[in-house]
């Protein structure tokens, strides 16, 4: 059921992720294996979302909640343990050979650290022209034109003055612009950016965020932004998904999620973000302890050991994603779903 990429239904999602799971097996001794002990890091535990063509979603959450692992699966850098990733009508999880190469041209990942993204011995031109060579752009003038265009688009002007520079001759902000240019040089339709500005000083972050926003709009790019910093996601994304221990616990239009969070974890997270307004009196929702290990996940709602509202059921049943209307979903029994869970429970017991 491969749908051709010429169908450009604006409403249809370009990317749809269904029940994505990634477990990293822990390599233990032989004895453990013999005993059938299959411990694993449960990095991603059933993530589902979709993004329309030209849309943007932000994945936020604390360190280790599975943001980067999710992004890497979207780009086929990690094989999912299970689940589907439908890109323009095609499940990319099973792509191979030429089809996979074609996908790689349409989808790009922008990494966090600009200094590690480039070989220090290559000129900027060489680093940017390489993807074009790999993807068979044969005409040299065409390659130069596209490198020039990409640099120009990310506001490195005059673009040709950067061709022969080496990474160490650029500031962190300029280098991060080159990272962006490199992910745009193949004119992709989809871009995932993992902590795109976290290495940069705040004074220069805004410039690159603005450029990313402009380019995404101009090219009708579909984007997934990953950041632990919700203010960045607030600035860039129409949809926000909050992750906790490898699951999306709340999702919806960004303003709604940030201004009126529903899930207890989202509420706690947002209430603790410092605000540059000393006059403002904040009420924070304190939660205890740290994030539990992703090796032995808590039962039921994985947030229950820290949740100030935890009920009996939370320990026993996994809250299903509930539709709150207006595009919002939440996984929490405070908003219902107990009956559904009972059904699931009964069915499981019957089976």
């Amino acid at each position, binding site marked *: 059921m491969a749908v051709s990429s010429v169908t450009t239904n604006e409403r249809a999602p370009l990317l749809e992720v269904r029940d994505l799971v990634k477990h990293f097996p822990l390599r233990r001794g032989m004895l453990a294996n013999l005993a059938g002990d299959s411990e694993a890091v449960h990095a991603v535990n059933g993530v589902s979302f979709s993004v329309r063509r030209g849309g943007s979603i932000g994945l936020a959450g*604390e*360190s280790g909640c599975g943001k980067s692992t999710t992004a890497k699966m979207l780009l086929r850098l990690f094989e999912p343990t299970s689940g589907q990733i439908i890109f323009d009508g095609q499940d990319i999880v099973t792509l191979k050979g030429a089809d996979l190469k074609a996908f790689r041209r349409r989808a790009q990942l922008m990494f966090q650290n600009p200094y590690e993204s480039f070989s220090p011995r290559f000129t900027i031109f060489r680093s940017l022209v390489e993807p074009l060579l790999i993807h068979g752009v044969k005409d040299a003038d065409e390659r130069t034109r596209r490198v020039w265009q990409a640099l120009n688009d990310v506001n490195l002007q005059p673009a040709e003055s950067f061709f022969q520079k080496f990474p160490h001759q650029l*500031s*962190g*902000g300029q280098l991060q612009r080159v990272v962006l240019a490199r992910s745009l040089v193949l004119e992709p339709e989809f871009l995932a950016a993992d902590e795109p500005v976290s290495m940069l*000083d*705040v*004074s*220069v*972050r*805004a*410039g*690159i*965020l*603005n450029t990313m926003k402009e380019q995404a709009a101009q090219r009708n790019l579909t984007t997934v932004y990953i950041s*632990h*910093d*919700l*203010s*960045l996601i*607030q*600035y860039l994304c129409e949809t926000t998904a909050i992750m906790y221990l490898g699951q999306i616990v709340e999702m919806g239009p960004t303003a709604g999620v*940030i201004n009126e969070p529903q899930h207890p974890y989202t509420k*706690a*997270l*947002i209430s*603790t*973000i*410092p*605000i*540059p*307004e*000393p*006059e*403002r009196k904040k009420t*924070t929702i304190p*939660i205890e302890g*740290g*994030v539990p290990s992703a090796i032995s996940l808590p039962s039921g709602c994985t947030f229950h050991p820290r949740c100030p509202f935890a009920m009996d059921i939370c320990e026993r049943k996994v809250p299903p994603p509930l539709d709150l209307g207006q595009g919002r979903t939440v996984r929490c029994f405070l908003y219902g779903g107990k009956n559904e869970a009972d059904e699931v429970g009964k069915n499981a017991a019957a089976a």
Partner: protein
Amino acid sequence: MSVPQPLLDVRDLRVEYSTRRGTMHAVDGISFTVEKGQHLGLIGESGCGKTTTGRALLRVLPRNGRVGGGQMFFKERDLVTLSEREMRALRWREISMVPQSSMDTLDPVYRVGDQLREVLTLRGGMNNAEARARSAELFDLVGLASDRLDNYPHEFSGGMRQRAVIAMALALNPDLVIADEPVTALDVIVQHQVLETFRDLQERLGISVIMITHDISVVAETCDEIAVMYAGKIMERAPVRRFFAMPFHPYALGLQNAFPNLARPKETLISIEGYPPDLVEPPKGCRFNTRCPFAIERCFVEEPPLIEVEPGHQAACHRWREVEQLREQAKEAETWQSVA
């Protein structure tokens, strides 16, 4: 009777590093004070000299670094002229430090409690029983359960390790703690817990803190005073509330545009394009002149002194008298693009 002196009074402090390219003026004539119980936020972008300032105060500079001038009066003694022996007696007991990325500095092979006890016995001269009691007290103070004293560092989360290091800094009841980016590597929820610990210390023990950070939101939430550093200089110093309400220095005006605010999202964030000057050969005039949209001729020849712009509030800018107009212009993205 003499006027009460501030706990710390730094005057025209200079710190230099010898490098292959020449002398680097990492801290170039800064002055500030810290009162008893006050929390001073020292902010500025990477490389502006924050850590250098903190290390100079304790005289624990790297080998190629030295105090090149100025005075650091702490309880009316000039730390610059104290002997190394006197300094040793003062470290931990009167001034202590939570070093940058310190949660990774705990020794992985020793129990956290043993590392804490070592400070108490070797530096504080306590016997083992005293040290054990005090350790439990300190863990309690920073919000750690005392039954975790026997854990190894790897059994702690990042936030717990950070709190253990803070407990160490507090071990011998110092008057002043220099906390260098104590929450930078932490997630917001844990960051909040650690910052609460600092606020608590101020309320309960009246400890003074120099909080080094690049995050003005952290300063807004935890400090009384702020000092903004840029390229080895203090550009603005003010009570925190005043700084956020009425900033004077163009760099501060730029920072406020560049910082996102979750509670009040901005339509557009604006960068201060460019980068700080080379401190081996600092530019003539104002150090911010290469990135400042308001620079005039004078800014390239004459260095602006840090002067009082309103009571208790100082800024170093030739055009401070025109600040109302500059504040308006600073809100426009075009203003800042004109420099790049």
